[in-house]
């Protein structure tokens, strides 16, 4: 009984507050990261030599540096050159740039998997290179990249828990504070983990319905014998 009361009065409000911060962090980072990833992926495949190199360097650094190190650089490093980011904004940039780098790899692979002949066909109809990419190649590539990008989004949900390392107190941060002040690590972190599990399940459900939504003959999502 006492436990329940403790959860209701102390744990729930704090974790809900943290959850809300997490969601505010995850959703924009996911969207901006995906857009950044598509841009970087397209540049790496279709860009001129310079753009290709810039996009390549971007991926090299943001995939190569540990995310925690990146967060420290955004938050503690940038003030050295006079740029001060709030913890939230630093975390947002950290997540966006990191997930963009991973997305770009999925997008690049998907772009390369689209038969080159379709590009020739579009050009022979008078499509410019830009129009070919955006109305013919990308719509197909995005469908192909969706499973990989979805995986990255799921991953983002969980690495958003690093935000508290730069004092952006989200779900894990609130959990950490609660756990250490009441010395109930096991219970609190089980609950925190459970909340992430719920978030991930929800995201999986959304991703699956998006995949079904954009599924067309020739681009089906492989399913366990469910397809008509």
């Amino acid at each position, binding site marked *: 009984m006492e436990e329940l009361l403790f959860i209701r009065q102390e744990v729930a409000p704090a974790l809900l507050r943290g959850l809300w911060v997490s969601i505010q962090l995850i959703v924009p980072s996911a969207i901006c990261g995906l857009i950044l990833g598509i841009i970087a992926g397209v540049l790496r495949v279709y860009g001129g030599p310079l753009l290709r190199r810039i996009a390549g360097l971007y991926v090299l650094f943001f995939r190569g540096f540990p995310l925690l190190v990146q967060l420290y650089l955004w938050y503690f490093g940038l003030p050295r050159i006079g740029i001060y980011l709030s913890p939230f904004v630093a975390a947002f940039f950290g997540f966006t740039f990191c997930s963009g780098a991973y997305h770009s790899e999925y997008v690049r692979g998907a772009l390369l998997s689209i*038969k080159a002949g379709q590009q*020739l*066909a579009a050009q022979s*109809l008078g*499509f410019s290179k830009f129009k070919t990419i955006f109305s013919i190649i990308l719509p197909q590539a995005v469908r192909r990249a969706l499973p990989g990008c979805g995986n990255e989004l799921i991953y983002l949900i969980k690495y958003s828990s690093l935000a508290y390392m730069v004092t952006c107190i989200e779900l894990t941060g609130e959990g950490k504070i609660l756990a250490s002040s009441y010395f109930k690590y096991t219970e609190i972190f089980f609950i925190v983990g459970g909340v992430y599990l719920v978030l991930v399940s929800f995201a999986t459900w959304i991703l699956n319905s998006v995949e079904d939504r954009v599924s*067309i003959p020739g681009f089906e999502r492989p399913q366990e014998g469910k397809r008509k």
Partner: protein
Amino acid sequence: MTNQHPVLKAENINKRYGNQEILKGVSFELNRGDIKCLIGPSGSGKSTLLHCINFLVQFDEGRIWFNGSEVNYARKHDLYAYRQKIGMIFQDFNLFDHLTALRNVQVGLVRVRKMPKKEARNRALVELERVGLKDHVMKYPAELSGGQKQRVSIARALAMDPEVMLLDEPTSALDPELIGEVHSVIQDLARGGMTMMLVTHEIGFAGSLAKEFLFMDEGVILEQGPPERILSNAECDRTREFCAKINQLHRGSG
């Protein structure tokens, strides 16, 4: 109509990949209503030549005139406008896999010619009906047979109102039962007076269609003339050798 210029004229087209010469100074002319057929062994440069005409392959030397004026491919706007006037049919169809048959035909009208969607849709329906696919307009490429796909690709090219059609082995990826339906569409085009350049190994079909055969080998047009003469009475040894093989096959199958 326009004038006495050839619709399409290519002069001295050269193309190298590394130090391998694919095309060694190829020239030809197409007058309005001409149907010319390129024959020759694989690797002789026939396909590359067709791709060069459309600047899908950038050649190293040479010039191309369309209706009497030289095509300036460096000016993107001119190049895109020119390509709309040159319909291209590929061996492996190259349909846009994420679009229905209808939208495959519609997309060029909307994106390139800026036609309103509804008008483009109607035009696409007309073209698909013309190639006998009225009942399949809502199907995706993955749901169509090879012959149907190739007919969609012909409809797609025709929707742009081309003045010349380039057909690169349009039936070589099809089984014998499907070849006929594509051939009859091409015959309809010929009857309608379309100017065409065709690469094919279907000599019988080409012979009934084309006024002239161009025999290509190792990057040059060795010989050209009426189909009967090229097939049975060629001047060059190489042409005779190739045509003897074809005739042999042809008699064998017919």
